[in-house]
Structure formats: structure tokens, C-alpha cells
């Protein structure tokens, strides 16, 4: 085998154990041993491979993950949501067909929510699924400690009415590339979900102007903004029920 052909075979990185018996690699490695320049090049590739492998194996694994997995926390909300949406998409396609047949009777355009409204709609959709929490604890301090240690999420204010309630758990959610922290509480047997996302990632025009209440299907929600964050509280029930919890 000529050196160019050997280099061609080895350019992606040295063959692993499972490839070393492949006759083409055997020949290429023999050529690398016989040709000093190719040998130097191959050794350099090996060193780079080792360095990159070492670097990728430095990726920190969250401390909570193992216990969470061993506790049976396998159900991923995210994927379920997408699967659910694929069913929704199928249902939507059917609805479009029906809609086309009744086109003349339907004149109201469908408006897709954007900005805070989209966040609110998606988070209610999230809550409706079978989501998991990263840690569970009745202590708010423990939950805040987790968000700080695992996600560097520390700069936010918890409403006094919620801070006095019993904690359930917390997790981080990725929403359109933005960090959204979720802390869950129980109050009088009612689950209350408190979301926080940094304001700096939002253009002003997409934020709620003031404290807003909105009923999203079975979810009563309240949203507001301070200098640092955008907040959303949601509970299954009516606006009056939510108001009594806050």
C-alpha cells in the first residue's frame, strides 16, 4: 500500500479495537511503521485523538442524574411533548381537510401565540404531560441550592406566598434555547408550579406589560416581570383558585 492510500485510510483517526483486524487497516498501519514520515503523522493523529477523547470525557455529569435514573425517572417530558404534538399535527391535518370543506363558513384566522404568550402556552402544555423533576424536597432552600449548583440559576425572587408553602421539587427546562427554572409547591393539597426565566433573553415587546392572569385550558396562570426575570405561576383550576394561593 502506498503512503497516500494509508494516510487516506487513517485520516479519520487511528482504527479502534473493532477495526484493527480489517485487512485494509492492517496494511495501512504496516505502511505507517515502514514510512517514518507517515509514522510521525499517525502518532500525531493518535495524540490528538487521545487529547480530544480526554477532553470530551471531562464533560461534567449532573450529580442528580444517576439517582434520578435509578429511581426510575425515565420518562422524558420533552419527547412525550413532541410525540403528543405529532398526534396533534395529524389531528390538525384532519382538521384542515374538514376546514377546507367548510371554508366559506370559517373566517376567523388562527393566531399563533408569540413571546410570553407562547411561553405560557408551551409551559401549560408541558405541565399537562408526565414530566419529571430533577430533585424532590419539601424544602425550598434545598431546591434553590440544586438550581444554583447544577444550573447556576440563583438570581430570582420567590413570591412570599409560595415561599411559605411546602416544596415538591424542581427542574430546569430548555425553552427555545432559554433557561426556564421550575419549582413546584403544594398548597392546601393543590400543586402550584412556579417558572422563572431570565429577562435579559427577551425583547421588551414580547414581555407582559404588567401582572397578567390568563386561563389556558384547565390551567389558571399569572405572569409578571421584574428587573431580572419573567415569572409565571400555574395551577390546575380557576383564576380565583390561583388568586387565593398567591
Amino acid at each position, binding site marked *: 500500500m502506498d503512503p*497516500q492510500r494509508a*494516510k*487516506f*485510510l487513517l*485520516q*479519520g*483517526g487511528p*482504527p*479502534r*479495537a*473493532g*477495526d484493527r483486524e*480489517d485487512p485494509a487497516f492492517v496494511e495501512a498501519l504496516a505502511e505507517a511503521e515502514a514510512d517514518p514520515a507517515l509514522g510521525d503523522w499517525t502518532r*500525531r493523529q493518535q*495524540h*490528538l*485523538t*487521545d*487529547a*480530544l*477523547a*480526554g*477532553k*470530551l*470525557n*471531562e*464533560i461534567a*455529569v*449532573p450529580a442528580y*442524574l*444517576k439517582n*434520578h*435514573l*435509578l*429511581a*426510575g*425517572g*425515565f*420518562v*422524558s*417530558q*420533552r*419527547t412525550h411533548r*413532541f410525540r403528543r404534538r405529532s398526534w396533534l399535527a395529524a389531528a390538525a391535518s384532519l382538521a384542515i381537510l374538514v376546514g377546507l370543506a367548510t371554508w366559506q363558513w370559517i373566517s376567523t384566522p388562527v393566531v399563533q401565540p408569540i413571546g410570553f404568550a407562547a411561553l405560557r402556552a408551551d409551559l401549560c402544555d408541558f405541565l399537562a404531560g408526565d414530566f*419529571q423533576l*430533577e430533585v424532590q424536597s419539601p424544602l425550598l432552600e434545598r431546591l434553590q441550592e440544586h438550581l444554583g449548583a*447544577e*444550573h447556576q440559576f440563583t438570581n430570582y425572587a420567590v413570591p412570599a406566598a409560595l415561599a411559605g408553602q411546602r416544596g415538591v421539587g424542581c*427542574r*430546569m*427546562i*430548555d425553552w427555545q434555547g432559554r*433557561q426556564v427554572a421550575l419549582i413546584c409547591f403544594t398548597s392546601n393539597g393543590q400543586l402550584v408550579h412556579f417558572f422563572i426565566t431570565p429577562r435579559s433573553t427577551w425583547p421588551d415587546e414580547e414581555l407582559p406589560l404588567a401582572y397578567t392572569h390568563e386561563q389556558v385550558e384547565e390551567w389558571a396562570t399569572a405572569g409578571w416581570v421584574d428587573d431580572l426575570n419573567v415569572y409565571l405561576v400555574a395551577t390546575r383550576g380557576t383564576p380565583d383558585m390561583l388568586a387565593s394561593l398567591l
Partner: protein
Amino acid sequence: MASPEVELVVEEHYQKLFRFAMSLVNNASVAADLTQQTFYIYASKRGQIRDASRTKAWLFTTLHREFIALKRKETRHPEYELMLVEDDLPSIAPEALRNLDVKLVLRALEELDERFRVPLALYHLDDLSYREIAELLEVPIGTVMSRLARGREHLFRRLHPEVVSQHTNIISLPTPVAALS
């Protein structure tokens, strides 16, 4: 609680799977979700894996599929013509690479096209062979070789300025003037 069999598999593979997910998405929450989803599927379908030695490859394949599903876009695997990567690659010393912050490496990896990112992560994270990666991605082995070569080329090109900048941050002490005798 997970069954003892599932527990063993979690113990053995969760770190590698999480790191693979991180190298794909560079987001700890999403990576944790992908890892959880992979074990969820494993827990419900493990009876389908007849050869236990294939468990690792099965888990990586599943996580990769979930990643594709997550992105909700059609992923095509066009065949790449095998070409020899040019020799004018930026020179990166392995020592310099070892000293880089892992976040910089992840960011550079994130900028790569997914076709290159996935085989690079599989090859470097878990010592998977060309053949195993080819089976996992359902592409010919030559395509894996090509993507790995191109992926390394692109990655090192992206990391080169970081390495240079790291070196320029080192301020050399002035050379002492030799005492005249």
C-alpha cells in the same frame, strides 16, 4: 424503582450517554432529558435486545434517534465522496488541546454540522470502531471515515484561534540581562 437489570445498565452507561448527548446539544437540561428518554425506552423494550453485548450500541443508537426526533427535522445522510483532507490543517499541539476549557471544545463541536458532530462524539467518547459507528448511523463505513476526517478538520480549525488566544494570554517574563563580567 428500576429493576436490578436496568440499574446495572444505568450504572454502566449513563455517564457516557449523557456526555454523548451533551456533545450533540451542548445543553445540560436537554442532554439529561435525552438520557432519561433513552433509558425509558430501554426499560420498556429491553426484551428486544437478544445479545446483551449489543446493549451499549443499542443505547447510543436510541439516544441518537431521540436527538433526531427532538430536532424535528428531516435528517438526511447524503453520501460524501471520500477525499483526502488537505495537509494545510492548523497545527494544534495535543498538549494545547488538553489545556483548553471543555466548554470551548463543546462550543466548537456545537458549531459543526450534525453529520460530523455525531461520529466525532461516538469515536472519541466511547472508542466505538468505524464499523460500529457505521452500523449505528446506518451509513457505509467509508462515509464514517470521511465524516470523521472532515469533522476533525473542521473542529481543529475552529479550536485553532482558541489555542492561539490561550497562548497569547501567557505573558513571558523579560529575559534577564546577563551580568557583564
